[in-house]
């Protein structure tokens, strides 16, 4: 595997979407190629940033309260109908 082929699969590799055989080929290339190794680590840092920043976005408490109230009402209505 060359640098170009490795770079084309960087996200599939980091997302663990490759077959074990192809993932192993990538790892062999990364061991032999410091530039690609650094590039892969950079992309990993980028994806970790997205996951971390994404997790910081939470449903507002008011929404949580409204949803719970809705479920309660919906259930009460159905219980009455039964």
């Amino acid at each position, binding site marked *: 595997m060359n640098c170009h082929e490795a770079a084309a699969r960087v996200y599939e590799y980091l997302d663990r979407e490759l077959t074990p055989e192809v993932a192993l080929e990538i790892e062999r290339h990364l061991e032999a190629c410091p530039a690609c190794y650094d590039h892969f680590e950079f992309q990993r840092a980028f994806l970790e940033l997205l996951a971390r920043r994404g*997790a910081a976005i939470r449903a507002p408490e008011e929404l949580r309260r409204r949803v719970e109230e809705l479920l309660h009402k919906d259930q009460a209505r159905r219980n009455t109908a039964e």
Partner: protein
Amino acid sequence: MDSSADEKRRSFEAEALPHLDAVYRFARSLTRDAQRAEDLAQEAMLKAYRSWHQYRPGTNARAWLLTIVRNTFINQYRRQQHEGTSVDLGEMESYTAFPEVQERDPEGKFFDRIVDEEVLRAIEELPEEFREVVVLSDLEDLSYAEIAELLGVPVGTVKSRLFRARQALQRKLYEYAVEMGYIKARAK
């Protein structure tokens, strides 16, 4: 008395409610508006509750809920908006910020200085096809196969959209970091 309705509510609270943050995040990325996102999330959760008998236990409840969010959005919200925000996804050039930072910050430490709101804003600026795959993969951790099923597109499409979406997002965030002085632009 313990009715089947009580049982349903308990199982919904245990398996679906913990994904409310994910439902809200996805709604937020689709509507790009906090208030509309709340309305969409609320409506989708109520729909999910009413069709909870269709959920197959043991499958990914988060993916199931996010499918309902998207269907609700398409049916009720997008109709009010103009269509045609779709871009030709094939036309976008390949990009990675790595060559720009390779010598000064190869580990991408400048990413750590970018605040939550800025990341969210950059995601919201992406075309819808890109926004969806980034949120579903990077924020909600769905597999390519799960995203493909949710969007009704082939896995190969998910793969290529995700690749381009991340490149576009990386470019935005890199440019923002340069603008803010978190990292200096490479000397020409």
